């Protein structure tokens, strides 16, 4: 069994993330499963950033605690992370630029910068040298690395070649000097699985779902969604715009959706704050929009490049007044893709806003995923009347009162139909009213849509046995670490299971109640300081969670941390 953790660290600007991605792809191509997370500061150069890359011969959804190989692009990385290394571990560092007082037996010095200059022609390629060295130490297939690098730099002249040569320099150096390093990772086979982040998955999901309009204002961690789609706008005939602010963003999205395009935006909590009034407008005018909210630690600016799950209750209650909405919080990278396509369907079928509650962790971590099954992606646009249907039906009323609460849409520029809607309370025709009776009817009509949405909300995931003494309850991106924590605890003989929510609103109260009824004790595990899921869950089911395992330091949970905290709680 292979279960190997690399860690790469250095300053911002040295290419930590890029090493992590290339390494990940290289092992994925050889049949492995990879999971990699990213830890970096809110600055462009300097400071310290690192990434863990876990390589396993079976599916993996979290990084693990011990590090087997530390790729140190600077001295600080060694100082900070030396202690995390397993006893058999290796530290790859630049032996000609960095010296250490005590020479550790784990030190595998490589002249990173020199080889970069000699082989690649530019010291910036020291990260490729390091990549080659890492691959060489574990005696993996260099050709796979060369392939990935070549594709990475395709279209940039000799850059690709130079990087491959730099990498080869590192590879050859370690094969020559450190051929007796103990741990090996052999190629398992050949695989065409993907390696991608949660942001990538959401962007691809949006394209698959036929999103035709994306407006966004840059904000970590969701900017990459905007940037990816901007890059594809030409080829996919979608409009991507970066307006003056997030208020403009949300109202443009509403305008585009009203006109008939599938439309979305992606932001973080701060930008979402500015969209909250627009969210209510979408609710009132029954306009289908999709909003990605990538959480990060708050309040205010908080820690811009870090992880938190602090916006759950805000997002569920955001905007004044009452209207139906759906809130989906993807649990994994794969889930992010399919839930995004579902978000567009829910939005259009129920003509109301749908929020994808993402977070910095899922947004930025890389995961090996089977190619998305595009045949699973259905495009359900709900009731949209054609010119003929409008003609058959007689007078068109945008907000017709129906049993399901759903009023058939017509798109503006449909002959025979005038599509009228209003931010004020309105009658079936969409004209503003003052009447108490119509108001009541309209509130009830909109409320009825929530029933329909609730029926489409997927059930929480149950991992482990249906009943267990201890039930962990999580939501969103903590699924991977939680699942692994359950594995560890069960292996130790504890009777634990996991109830995980990824479709959060309308709240799936029945299943949650049922599972909790089977547990002797239950613990929420949340990346926030108040236990928002516990609060919501109690409001919805009346059940009081036994305890809360909370973390709000801006860093994601690791499986071992959860295991440790749970042991403290139940001992």
């Amino acid at each position, binding site marked *: 069994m292979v279960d190997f953790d690399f860690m790469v660290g250095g300053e911002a600007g040295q290419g930590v993330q890029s090493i992590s991605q290339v390494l990940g792809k290289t092992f994925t191509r050889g049949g492995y499963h990879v999971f990699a997370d990213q830890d970096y500061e809110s600055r462009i150069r300097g400071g310290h950033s690192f990434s863990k890359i876990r390589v396993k011969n079976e599916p993996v959804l979290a990084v693990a605690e011990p590090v087997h190989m530390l790729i140190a692009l600077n001295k600080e990385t060694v100082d900070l992370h030396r202690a995390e290394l397993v006893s058999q571990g290796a530290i790859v560092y630049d032996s000609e630029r960095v010296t250490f007082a005590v020479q550790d037996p784990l030190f595998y010095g490589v002249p990173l910068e020199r080889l970069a200059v000699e082989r690649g022609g530019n010291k910036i390629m020291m990260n490729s040298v390091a990549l080659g060295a890492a691959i060489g130490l574990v005696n993996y297939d260099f050709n796979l690395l060369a392939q990935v690098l070549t594709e990475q730099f395709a279209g940039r002249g000799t850059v690709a070649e130079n990087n491959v040569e730099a990498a080869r320099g590192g590879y050859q150096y370690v094969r020559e000097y450190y051929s007796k390093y103990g741990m090996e990772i052999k190629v398992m086979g050949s695989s065409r699985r993907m390696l991608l982040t949660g942001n990538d998955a959401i962007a*691809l999901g949006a394209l*698959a779902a036929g999103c035709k309009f994306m407006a966004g204002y840059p904000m970590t961690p969701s900017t990459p969604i905007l940037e990816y789609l901007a890059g594809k706008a030409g080829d996919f005939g979608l409009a991507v715009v970066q*307006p003056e602010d997030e208020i403009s*963003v949300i109202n*443009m999205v509403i*305008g585009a*959706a009203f006109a008939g395009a599938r439309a979305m935006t992606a932001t973080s909590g701060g930008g979402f704050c500015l969209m909250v009034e627009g969210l209510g407008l979408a609710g009132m005018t029954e306009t289908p929009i999709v909003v990605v909210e990538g959480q990060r630690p708050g309040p205010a600016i908080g820690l811009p490049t870090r992880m938190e799950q602090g916006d759950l209750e805000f997002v569920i209650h955001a905007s004044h007044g009452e209207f139906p909405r759906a809130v989906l919080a993807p649990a994994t990278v794969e889930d992010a893709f399919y839930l995004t396509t579902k978000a567009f369907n829910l939005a259009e079928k129920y003509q109301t806003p749908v929020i994808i509650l993402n977070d910095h962790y899922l947004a930025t971590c890389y995961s090996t995923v089977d190619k998305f099954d595009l045949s699973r992606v259905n495009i359900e646009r709900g009731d949209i009347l054609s010119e003929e249907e409008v003609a058959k039906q007689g007078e068109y009323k945008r907000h017709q009162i129906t049993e399901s609460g759903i009023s058939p849409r017509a798109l503006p*520029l449909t002959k025979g139909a005038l599509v009228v809607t209003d931010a004020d309370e309105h009658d079936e025709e969409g004209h503003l009213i003052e009447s108490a009776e119509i108001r009541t009817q309209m509130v009830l009509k909109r409320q009825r849509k929530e029933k329909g949405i609730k029926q489409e909300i997927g059930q929480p995931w149950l991992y482990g046995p249906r009943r267990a003494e201890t039930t962990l309850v999580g939501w969103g991106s903590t699924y991977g670490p939680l699942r692994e924590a359950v594995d560890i605890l069960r292996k130790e003989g504890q009777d634990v299971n996991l109830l995980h929510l990824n479709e959060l609103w309308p709240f799936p109260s029945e299943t949650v109640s049922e599972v909790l009824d089977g547990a002797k004790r239950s613990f929420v595990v949340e990346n926030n300081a108040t236990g928002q899921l516990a609060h919501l869950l109690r409001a919805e089911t009346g059940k009081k969670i036994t305890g809360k395992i909370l973390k709000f330091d801006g860093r994601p949970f690791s499986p071992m941390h959860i295991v440790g905290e749970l042991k403290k709680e139940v001992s």
Partner: protein
Amino acid sequence: MVKMEDYAGGTPAWCPGCGNFAILVALRRALVDLDLEPYRVLMVSDIGQAGKLPHYTRGNVLNVLHGRTLPAAIGAKIANPELTVIGVAGDGGSYGEGGNHFLHALRYNHDITHLVHNNQVYALTRGQTSPTSDPGYVTRTTPQGAPTPINPITLAIIGGASWVGRGFAGDINHLVQLITRGIQHKGFALVDILQPCPTFNRKNTFAWYRERVYKLEEDETYDPTDKMMAFSKAVEWGDRIPIGVIYQAERPTFGDYLFPSGAEPLVKQKLDPFSIAPLLEEFV
């Protein structure tokens, strides 16, 4: 042939004597003159007395939040460029709450026409100062008199608008012409309309304006394509107030910028999940 009745709508809830009535008639006449059927027109309006206008005629209507007329109109226009998109809002919504959208709409040159019912006051909320209130004008929120206003005409010209006109609710025929030309213009057309509000603006009345407005069209030497000339007219306010097409220019619209080689309207494109298959390879 489109007729005035095609644009007959609900009964206005405006005060008797309000300048908005004239704007409503002028817009209806302009649309009839342009022979645009109501289903081809999308009026986007916001909250305020001005914003109620679309309810009093016919067409597709997207009534949005106070100040958000422009972004909503822009989104709709990008999604379906075949719609004739007209923004309808007050001075408060356009230059106050929506000031940032205004500023940036100017430079992007979206192909929409924006009608501003400029009564120099917040009317629906009962008479507070607006960004265009005459300096010194006393309102309930400015007992000491309003501060220095903005001049939307100069801002529009300097900010990059490709068509800037000023109309007056007291001259319907002229206003019909102006709105018609604004709609015909390809690019962002600002029609700032002097709109007396007899209820809350006791200073800038029909009579006050009548004494001051004059038509640029009557001055043969006036060339609205000359930016400096336009600018010198734009700063006029007080004894003489010019109305008419103040500035016009030709430049690419935002649509041209977004899809330089053209594109099927977004709303007409087929949605096909399998189209992304090649993209998946990027991540292998």
